[in-house]
């Protein structure tokens, strides 16, 4: 098969000469998907933008060639290049919400491409717009064509982006993290759409992602990027069965899953080096446990190890690569040995007991802003968390899980219901006790630390507010202990948040919560803003702290892999209500609610052979106007008459396992 795209020696740099993309070569065959895999800041998006010559101001192409269908892209004039963009090669981006023009209708935006690359205008163009929207699975396309992006959900917007890309009938589609901003079920829809389109039109796909699961599901070939370089290149099968580069191996090992319960994740220490900071030696040296002196002295050469698989690592250079590889395989195997720990968790006495908690927000309308309805963000949730255990609250964005967490801390006042902590009612009670009892770790470590305060001041704030450790020497000593606990050096307390990486910031945020010795930590997606390798560090830390301090966690997440690794019990939330609850084993191994089943099957698996796909149609309905009966009924393939009539009562499967569904 012929190559559609052949990139060689691509270099992209900042004005000051720091290389963001450093000497990258790869090629994509007709009709195939090439995945560029890497963590944030490794230069993968810049690679894609370089190819289409869409680099932002201040970043420029500094060397290398790229041939698209034999045409040298960097030799084209700007005017010629414009016929390539959107024509031969189209691109879609990470944030569909921001990538569409908010003041133009969907139809207008697609018609622009049709006019430019297909010469279509007027009726024909309008006709084609509807066809395209239909093709990407947007229901009621004729109406949608006249709508504005704000009227569409996130998944729909990404479909529109894809329709827009397809309008020019491209031979190559560059997809830059196309599903990262989407929920897991929507991600499954979009990935499937991409795959179907590809098989229908025979175009090639350059897929940029940080998600190993997406690579496993989509790619024919993959390149692993680290700090501006491709460190390993292989076919999907090769990459999944025998990753060669220590970095790739670590990435696999850092993925949390049920198989690794009871043992710490293989976290990669440190974080990705800043751009252009390393010019000599292997860029992974500082974080690699197989590094030796040569690694920091000499830049490793590209070594082809097997047919179609190459690696940039001294381990495979010169010597008998085959023998070396065998050794590696043995090591790789190590990671797959699962030591099954007991998933059958014995619930102790509840530390936190929530019953029938409701958080409603009024909807105001009209001239006098009177209340016309309620957004039932949390609608009658009951749960309990025993001492020393982890309850995972799982659901997609907009299901009310974060609101629930904040309502427990009274950051949002609950509308009704009761929250009992160690048997004492907290709703309406003296709040002071509650502050020390429960604390929160927030999602975004960049937004959760005040940039104008030193670490010591950040950690001290809670103690001061709650009068813990009244004298300052004791407080300083406590701060030192806290920093030890979360694995930061003691002198970091005199520094400011901007001097720390994302993972370190999250450690500070955990230390801040621990400063007032809470018994329960509410962790709101604490790792979703972090790279996989750093996520593993934080998960390990949380697990260690739980064992040391007998902490309880309410772990709010959308990431089911994390749930498998960390949680004892799981609650699945849909549109303000808990639809299924049980031990991790029960919910994840034998899900009963169709929504839980769909959620589980939507997660891309690295083993490639996922369960039978349950496709979920449509989007999450608005909590302001939930469907009658079972909220999930309109999207459920098993929905029956009675589902639309009444909300199903709890069905008990075991002492711990309960499901709100008429099916059984």
């Amino acid at each position: 098969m012929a190559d559609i795209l052949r990139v060689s020696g691509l270099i992209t740099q900042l004005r000051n000469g720091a290389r963001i993309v450093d000497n990258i070569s790869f090629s994509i065959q007709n009709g195939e998907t090439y995945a560029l895999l890497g963590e944030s800041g490794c230069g993968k998006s810049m690679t894609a933008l370089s190819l289409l010559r869409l680099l932002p101001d201040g970043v420029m192409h500094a060397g290398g060639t790229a041939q698209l269908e034999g045409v040298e892209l960097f030799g084209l004039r700007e005017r010629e290049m414009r016929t390539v963009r959107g024509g031969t090669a189209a691109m879609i981006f990470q944030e569909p919400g921001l990538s569409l023009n908010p003041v133009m209708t969907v139809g207008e935006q697609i018609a622009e491409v049709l006019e430019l690359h297909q010469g279509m205008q007027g009726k024909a163009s309008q006709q084609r717009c509807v066809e395209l929207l239909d093709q990407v699975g947007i229901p009621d396309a004729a109406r949608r064509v006249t709508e504005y992006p704000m009227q569409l959900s996130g998944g729909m917007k990404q479909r529109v982006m894809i329709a827009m890309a397809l309008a020019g009938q491209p031979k190559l589609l560059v997809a830059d993290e196309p599903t990262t901003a989407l929920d897991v079920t929507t991600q499954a829809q979009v990935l499937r759409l991409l795959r179907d389109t590809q098989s229908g039109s025979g175009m090639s796909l350059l897929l940029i992602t940080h998600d190993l699961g997406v690579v496993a599901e989509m790619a024919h070939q993959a390149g692993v990027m680290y700090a501006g370089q491709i460190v390993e290149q292989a076919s999907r099968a090769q990459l999944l069965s025998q990753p060669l580069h220590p970095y790739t191996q670590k990435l696999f090992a850092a993925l949390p899953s049920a198989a690794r319960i009871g043992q710490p994740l293989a976290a990669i220490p440190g974080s990705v080096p800043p751009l252009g900071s390393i010019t000599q030696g292997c860029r992974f040296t500082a974080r690699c446990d197989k590094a030796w002196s040569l690694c920091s002295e000499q830049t490793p050469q590209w070594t082809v190890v097997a047919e179609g698989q190459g690696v940039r690592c001294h381990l495979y250079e010169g010597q008998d690569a085959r023998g070396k590889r065998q050794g590696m395989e043995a090591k790789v195997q190590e990671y797959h040995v699962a030591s099954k720990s007991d998933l059958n968790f014995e619930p102790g006495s509840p530390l936190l007991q929530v019953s029938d908690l409701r958080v409603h927000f009024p909807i105001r309308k009209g001239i006098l802003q009177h209340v016309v309805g309620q957004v039932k963000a949390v609608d009658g949730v009951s749960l309990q968390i025993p001492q020393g255990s982890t309850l995972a609250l799982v659901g997609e964005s907009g299901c009310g899980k974060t609101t629930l967490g904040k309502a427990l801390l009274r950051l949002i006042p609950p509308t009704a219901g009761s929250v009992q902590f160690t048997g004492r009612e907290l709703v309406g009670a003296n709040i002071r006790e509650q502050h020390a009892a429960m604390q929160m770790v927030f999602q975004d470590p960049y937004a959760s630390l005040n940039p104008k305060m030193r670490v010591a001041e950040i950690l001290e704030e809670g103690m001061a507010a709650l009068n813990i450790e009244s004298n300052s020497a004791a407080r300083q000593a406590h701060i030192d202990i806290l920093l030890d606990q979360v694995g930061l050096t003691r002198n970091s307390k005199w520094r400011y948040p901007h001097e720390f990486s994302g993972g370190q910031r999250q450690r500070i945020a955990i230390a801040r919560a621990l400063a007032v010795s809470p018994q329960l930590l509410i962790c709101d997606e604490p790792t979703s803003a972090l790279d996989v390798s750093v996520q593993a560090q934080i998960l390990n830390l949380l697990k260690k702290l739980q064992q040391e301090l007998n902490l309880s966690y309410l772990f709010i997440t959308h990431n089911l892999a994390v749930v498998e690794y960390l949680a004892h019990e799981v609650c699945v939330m849909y549109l303000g209500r808990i639809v299924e609850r049980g031990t991790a084993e029960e919910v994840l191994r034998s899900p009963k609610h169709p929504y839980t089943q769909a959620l589980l099957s939507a997660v891309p698996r690295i083993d490639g052979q996922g369960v039978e796909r349950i496709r979920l149609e449509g989007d999450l309905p608005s909590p302001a106007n939930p469907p009658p009966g079972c909220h999930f009924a309109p999207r459920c393939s098993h929905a029956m008459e009675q589902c639309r009539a009444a909300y199903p009562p709890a069905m008990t499967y075991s002492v711990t396992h309960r499901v709100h569904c008429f099916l059984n």
Partner: protein
Amino acid sequence: MSFMPVMLWSDALVFLLLAAGTASALYVRQREHLMLPWQRVAQSATAMVSLLVLSLFLLIGLLDTLHYRIALPEKNGGETVYSPEVLSVFDKLVTPLRTQTEKTYSAPLAVTLYAKESISDAHGNIAREYPRLRYGGAHLTDMQLQDSDVCWRWVTGMLAGMLVGLLITLGSKRWLAQRGWPLRPLLIATLIISALIGMTINLAVVYHVLGTDKVGQDVLYLSLKSIRTGLIIGTVTTLVTLPLALLLGIAAGYLRGWVDDVIQYIYTVLSSIPSVLLIAAAVLMMQVTIDTHPQWFDNSASRADLRLVFLCLILGVTSWTGLCRLLRGETLKLREMEYIQAAQSFGVSSLRILTRHIMPNVMHIVLISLVMDFSGLVLAEAVLSYVGVGVDPSMISFGTMINAARMEMGREPMVWWALASAFGFMLVLVLAANLFADAVRDAFDPRLNRTEAVA
């Protein structure tokens, strides 16, 4: 004592500002992360050159702020009597400029008046000719020598100035280099400025460098005196704007509810009145109050000064709304930040959250808007004084200079020098302020510092 220090209201406010400025500078110096944006400012050549120019203006303004009254030779029953005239240290330094007044208009560097007059010579013949000036070029015996004398003084003054400039640059070179400040632009600017100063001084001792005005006052002196007025309008106003905007803005944004409603109402009402009209109305009413209470003031200087202070107050009251709205918006964004929620979850009080979390994180907006507003206020003074609602007509300012000079627009040939020097000085001051403000904004605005986070 041969003099008595006088502290006018505006002087007190200037010293208050100076103290506040010094205190915050010391505070910032100890905190590395607060120093960081200032270091970015210091890297910028335009910013540092503008700062150099601004500090010269500031120096003149400060010298002009140290006021005193001299003792009169006669005594009143053993008690020293002080002159009602309030002078400043700056006046003392440039005494010749202040006291050597001519009869009326004379052009820059002229030796004669601007208009012919009838002069009777020793024989009683009346001739119409340009009379010699009393002071300007009085040392010249022959008027023909004027050109060569001017040139000579120009060149020697420039050379002397450059020599001094050179000594300064050589002395400060290492000090500048250590800090990594832009060396060459600063040194060149120092050389040019000191050459200019040397030149001016050397000429000003015997000529009216920028001519004289209708009553024969030296225009250079008037221009230099105007600097203080401009600086006070530009800075003292912030004493009113800053607390109002900061407190009300962040309180409205953070507390929401009825507090927000009330504050929003107040600033919508205030900003709905076109500002020139509101200022005009307020100044007119102030005028009435001052005129009907002459007993409040013991001399004309303190009356003019109080009017200046009131003008700053009025400008402040009418101009805080913009900054307040900006701060409210920013606070609305900040209060949703997770670190604020973290503090709330510890039960930290609202007051503490406002002072510890919100205030430090909006200070860059306050700073940017203050430096950006400065030049606008200096320009506004001129317009308001022209309209008749600015400073007291007896107070020397760019506005009163322009207003007085404008009357002579119709004259043939035109008297251009007073207008030109007022506009010229104002342009240099405002341009320097604008360039410096730009550099400050570039350094402090987080949105403009995105290039570091590229890729």
